[in-house]
């Protein structure tokens, strides 16, 4: 096995072009588990922790793929509350100190914690190769169970987000708070100025996915210009539509029926929290 240690992004991309079989490693929280258990023996590891371009974010909210969850929570929680909430549910402090959104995207597990937020918040994934770079909307990034839109010679460079335009919420079901792979998860983003809603489910289909019908239903029901307490029937219908967007399976973490039920509950609750935040915000401004 070779251990490749690029010190610039250009060098990393050149190495990946030369060695498309090299497995990128950043926080190691997925890759090292596979190596420790001998589930994988790649011909080369491509260590990305020394590439400075991947370790920083800028005011345009282009977040380097190697920025760990702990820094997202500490440094970006005010502008990206949804992403920070999801990041807080990742593993443990030790894992959040190392694990990265880039790694979440690279592994493309349907249960990855940040995926629903990225989908609900219109994230765009920047990938690059020696041939150039391209921008892939999160909605087009997840192709199947642990499969993403990356080509063999490409690396995930950054994720682009906009500062939250309104309330955002994230919810995840697991057996305890720490060290839990989601049984299922849900994210909602409100865009009051655009009178629009983003909603996405995690760990409840072969890929994380947006709940389009639920988004459209809610956008047509919500009165963004003068927010008032929501009717229970609206919350219920939203929950039903979110649940219907999922196509979960029975597995060791939970049954498909449970996941469907839990998604509806999480959708109702997170909508309630997000909407209340909007009402409270209006009151504070009045």
């Amino acid at each position, binding site marked *: 096995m070779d251990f490749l240690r690029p010190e610039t992004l250009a060098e990393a991309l050149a190495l990946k072009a030369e060695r498309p079989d090299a497995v990128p490693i950043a926080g190691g929280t997925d890759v090292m588990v596979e190596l420790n258990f001998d589930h994988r023996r790649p011909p080369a590891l491509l260590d990305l922790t020394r590439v400075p371009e991947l370790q920083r974010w800028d005011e345009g909210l282009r977040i380097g793929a190697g920025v760990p969850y702990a820094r997202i929570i500490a440094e970006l929680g005010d502008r990206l509350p949804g992403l920070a909430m999801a990041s807080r549910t990742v593993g443990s402090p*030790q894992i959040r100190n190392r694990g990265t959104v880039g790694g979440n995207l690279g592994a493309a597990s349907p249960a990855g914690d940040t995926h629903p937020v990225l989908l609900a918040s219109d994230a765009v994934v920047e990938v690059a190769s020696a041939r150039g770079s391209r921008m892939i909307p999160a909605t087009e990034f997840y192709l199947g169970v642990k499969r993403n839109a990356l080509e063999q010679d490409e690396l995930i460079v950054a994720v682009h987000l906009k500062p939250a335009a309104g309330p955002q919420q994230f919810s995840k079901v697991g057996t305890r708070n720490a060290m839990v792979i989601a049984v299922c998860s849900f994210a909602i983003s409100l865009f009051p100025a655009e009178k629009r809603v983003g909603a996405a489910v995690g760990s409840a289909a072969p890929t994380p996915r947006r709940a389009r019908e639920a988004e459209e239903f809610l956008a047509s029901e919500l009165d963004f210009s003068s927010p008032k307490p929501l009717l229970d029937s609206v919350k219920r219908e939203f929950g039903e539509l979110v649940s219907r967007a999922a196509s979960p399976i029975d597995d060791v973490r939970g049954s498909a029926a449970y996941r469907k039920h839990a998604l509806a509950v999480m959708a109702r609750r997170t909508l309630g929290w997000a909407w209340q935040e909007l009402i409270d915000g209006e009151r504070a401004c009045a």
Partner: protein
Amino acid sequence: MRVNLTVNGEQRQADDVWEGESLLYVLRERLGLPGSKNACEQGECGSCTVYLDDVPVCACLVAAGQAQDREVRTVEGLAEGDRLDPVQEAFVEAGAVQCGFCTPGLVVAAHDLLERVPQPSDPEIREALAGNLCRCTGYEKILDAVRLAAARR
């Protein structure tokens, strides 16, 4: 491959390191520092917690090559000579050690917490130690130890 790194303030060198090897293996098997424990090898238990450039991480999830030219501080590096670190002392006094396997990881995690938050609340202690499993104590004595160490600061 060869890996050069600083461990507990000393420049160290490990030879014949397999490229897929973890920092934990290097510490325990190549550098003679068995304080960090090897249990789950998947970041679930926290018993291999060490500082990497002052940030607590699971050593089992750091590739050895990633530690090249970095600074590592293990549980062996907390005491000054024969004088235990106040966190270690508090663990002994509070009865927070039973079989002892989880102790090194918990001591490092608690040490980091008190460096960042000298007077943590109970929820802050619980959150900081959420990545460290103990199967003996039921955690109560461990919480006592962290409170004791904080009170003595």
